[in-house]
Every structure is written in C-alpha cells, then in structure tokens.
C-alpha cells in the first residue's frame, strides 16, 4: 500500500494532465488549472520544512560550537528578523523596515555577487584558452567574433558584423536545434519513466 498509492497518484496525475493537453473540455481545464494552484500551495507548506531544515542545521552548529558557529547566529538573526518584520501584509509596502532591509542589504549583495561574474568570465576564458584544443579554440574564436561586433572598428566592424550575424543565424541555430531536440527527447523519456513508475528514486525507500 505504501508504494501502490503514490505510484497510482503519479500515473493518474501524469495521464490526466497529458490528456488535458489534447482534450479541450472545460472540466479537464478546471482540474489542470487547480492542479497548478495546488502545487503552489503545497510548495508554501514545504517552505516551512525548508526553514525548519535551515534552523536545525544552524542551531546544531551553534550548540556544538562548530567552527564558524557565530556566523550561523547571524544567519538565524537575519532569518527571524525578517519573519518578525514581515508578520503583516503591509510589510511588503515600500518604506517599511522589512523592505528597507531588503533594499539596503539584499539588493547590494545580490548585485555584487552578480558582478563577480565579470572576473570569473575572464578567468574562465583564460582557462579555456590555455587548454589549446581544437574545440576550445573554436569556442574562443567564435566568442571573440561575437564580442567584437559591439565595438566600432571602422570598416572592420562591417566585415565582422556580417560574419557574426551569419554565425548567430546559421551554425549557432543548427546546434541549438540539435541540443533542443536531444533535450526534448531526454525530457519526454524521463517524464514517461516517471509516469509509468519505472523511475522511482525520488520516492526513497523504507
């Protein structure tokens, strides 16, 4: 029973949603729209599990005085501070302390993390160049042509742009299509394996 019911649920849900795609009846549309809402609601309940996990891991490090336990205290302070400040829907309005913390703490750090990519892109390009294989050379040469099309270089810009446009619309499109088709086949095979109950690793064991 412990396994039959979940497998039945997977089969039923998978088949109903797949059939709904082909059968435009209002009743199936109703089930489909509500199923998506139920997933969102379940996700919010699951968020409580997530926060409990974060809390438990942080608290255990603090209790055991693991290396860097002080930082876990800061994490917990940030977490509970935001939960406390966000206790009512008005907290989401601009100007509230909740949104000020978001604006002055979260946003700058997020933007800075994003900007680190500029440094890492350069180091990744250097590493690829050092590899000196045919494939890495093709990768870098194409990257260079595409990058240069944004830079004014006189008559060379025209030459480069025409080539760059051809690269983007022809070989780039060809490979993207091949990847998309392969990914599509992989996805639908995975979906079928799940619905038919062949793939069950996500359900664990007893």
């Amino acid at each position, binding site marked *: 029973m412990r396994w039959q019911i979940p497998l039945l649920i997977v089969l039923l849900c998978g088949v109903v949603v797949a059939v709904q*795609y*082909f*059968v*435009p*009846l*209002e009743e199936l*549309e109703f089930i489909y729209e509500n199923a998506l809402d139920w*997933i969102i609601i*379940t*996700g919010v309940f*699951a*968020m409580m*599990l*997530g*926060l409990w*996990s*974060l809390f*438990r*891991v942080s608290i*255990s490090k603090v209790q055991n005085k693991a290396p*860097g336990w002080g930082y876990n205290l800061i994490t917990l302070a940030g977490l509970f501070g935001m939960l406390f400040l966000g206790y009512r829907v008005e907290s989401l309005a601009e100007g509230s302390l909740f949104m000020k913390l978001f604006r002055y703490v*979260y946003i700058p*750090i*997020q933007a800075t*993390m*994003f900007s*680190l*990519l500029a440094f*890492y*892109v350069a*180091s*990744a*390009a250097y*590493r*690829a160049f050092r590899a000196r294989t045919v494939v*890495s050379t093709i*990768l870098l040469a194409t990257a260079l042509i595409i990058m240069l099309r944004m830079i004014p270089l006189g008559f060379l810009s025209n030459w480069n742009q025409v080539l760059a446009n051809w690269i983007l619309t022809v070989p780039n499109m060809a490979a*993207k299509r091949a*990847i*998309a*088709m*392969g*990914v599509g*086949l*992989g*996805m*639908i*095979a*995975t979906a*079928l*394996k*799940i619905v*038919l109950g*062949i*793939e069950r*690793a*996500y*359900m*664990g*064991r007893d």
Partner: protein
Amino acid sequence: MKEKLVFGNKVLLIFFLLLLFLFLGINITFAQEAGEAKASVDSLAQAPAPPTNVVARDAPNDNGHALVVTWTLSPDDGAGKNNVVSYEILRSDNPDTGFVVKGVVALGISQYEDKGAKEKGDKNYLPSHKDFYYRVRARADGIFSESVVSAPAYAYGQWFHFGKSPIFIGSVIFTFFVVLFINMAKKGKELYVRPIAGIDAVDEAIGRATEMGRPILYIVGLGSAADLGTIASLTILNRVAKKVAEYQTPILVPCADPIVMTVAQESVKAGYYDAGRPDAYKEDSVWYITSMQFAYVSAVNGLMLRERTATNIYMGVFYAESLLLAETGNVAGSIQISGTDQVAQIPFFVAATDYTLIGEELYAASAYLGKEPLLLGAIKAQDWGKILIMISLVLGVLAASFHFDFFVKLFQVKM
C-alpha cells in the same frame, strides 16, 4: 385681491402660450429641415450592399465558449461602390432583438471568431449549448447596411484538439518505442550504450574524494521539482549516493528549493539503503539554504572553500550562478563534473569544469550510472526518436527542395 400674473390673466396666458408655440414650431421646423438635410446629405453617402450568406458555427478545438462567423463579402468591398471600410459582427440570443456589436474586422475579411469567457460573472460570458444569432454590418463612412439574421448556432467543447494531431502521433510513437525497448530489456537483451567521459569520471571522482578524506559536494541546481532537469539530477544523485555509501565518503547536498530538498533526502536515503548501509545516512547532509539565487550561491561558495570539497558535481537546472560555482570550485582545487540542459550555461561549464554533460546526456546519465536494463531501454527509445527525426529531416528537406510543401504541413500545430 391681487391677480396671479400667469394663470390669473387670460390675455397674458394666451399671449404666453402663443409665444411658446411659435418658439417650439420654429425649432421643430428647423430640426426637420436639418434632419431632412442630414438625411439628404446621408442619402448622398450611399450605403454599401449588405454582406450575405452569414453562417455561424461552433469554433473547433476549444472548450465550448467560442463561435466562428463567416459571410460573403459585400459586393461593394473592393468593387462596385468600393466604399466598405469595415464589418461589424453583432450577436443576440434572440433572432429579432437585442443585437450587440461583438467585434469589428477590416474590409476584405470574411471571418470572425467570437471568443467568449467561460465564467458566468464575466461580461463577455458566452455559455455553451445555447443558441445565438448573428448579423453582419458592412460599414461605410457614417452609414451601414445589415445582413439578414443567421441561422442559430451554439458552442460546445470538443473531445479532441485536431490541431495538435502531430503532437499526439509523436506521443504515441515515442511511448511505443519506450515500452518496446523496456520490454526488450526486461527479456534480458543486451543494450549497448557508448561511453560518456563525464559519466565515467564520476567513479574516479568519488574515489579521489575517498582517498583525500574530503567530502563530495552535489548541487542539484536551482530548478524546482517541476523541472525535469531537476528530477534527472535527483535520479543521478541516487546513484551517486549509492557509490558514496559504498566508499563511505561524506556527501553534502545543499538545496535551494524545499520540495527538492525533500526529494533529495529520499534519493540519498534510498542510495544508502541500496548500498546496504541505511544507518550511515545523515539527515543533515541534505539541507535547505535559501531559495534566492545568489544567496544560495554565496553560501555554497563559502562551503566549498571551508569544507575543501574534493569533488563537486553540478547536475540540473542552472542559471547565471553556474560560472560562480564552477570558478570557486577551481579555486578550491576540486575535480568538477557538470551537466545541465540550460544551453546558455553550458559554455561556462565547458570552460570551467573538468567534464560536462551536454543537454540530453544529463537525462541519460542516471541509466549509465545505475546500468539498470529498464533505464537503458529508455535510452534506446531516445535514440530511435532521433533516428525518426533524422529520417523526417531528410524526407522533409527533399520534399521542400522539390517544392512538395505537404511534408512541412504534417508538422503544423494549430493551437
């Protein structure tokens, strides 16, 4: 007694009434003259001939709240008086009264889809199984002529969306392939799959971590449980957890989605169970950090450097953070294996990690690692799907080159 001026004085009253009638009479006369003039001006702007043959029918392939109206164009549309500027489509549930304009189309168009809402409270509600009547007006400048009323028609939902037939046929064919090859695998038929460097490296990477006595970091990606790339990653995690349990190497699986965390916990636990070491599973090895992209990445970066992970495996759905993770792993000196179906992130993984599974290889990896016949059967089905696609391409290109367009129409999807 003082006389009341108006009603008390007959002479004044009669005089007042005469003035009033004279005033009204003059205005009515002027209005009539203006109306007549307006009419005569309008009669100079000639009405176009009305559209004919108005037919309403149910809109195909829908949920039963739309009707399609077609008509024959007015003879004065592009010919004759050539004064038609637009057509107005009017609907009523009564053949005689209550017609309301529901849509306007430009000249030259002889079809209109009247799409209604399905909710009763909506002002555009079009109930199914209820008769409606249509009229179509041909409009010129300031004047119009109407067709006769159409026969009644009602909307109803269809049992099958014929516009999506190519997808249905594709689904049936692919499902057939999967079932066929899985049955062949069940019967013990040997199914060969070529080696993939990134997948072969997983064993070596786990061995390396065991020798160094350092943990393995497995990142399931930033997708949700609704992404099949994440599910594929979780199935790979199960196989990796089994190997990790056999080697007794610690594994760390920080998650960015709480539902993914619960599934990951089940996957890892199952892996330990399959290796015969259920007691070695530590629940805290799979935990939730945060759902926000760069906060998650900053925590994982710190984890890589502090725990000095020997092997980093990135499998699943990644976005801009892919390069941040991979480069930090390089700084930490970890061996890195990556796999994603996000085309935009593959270049960064290719440049920054030691092995990369590209696109479909991510979905095949779980079968490769577990070597389970049923899953290898699914890979065969994928390959046959590719063969079918290649045959379709060859035939299609030949047909298009010789101007036989019918082949392209086989793949046309009408939503």
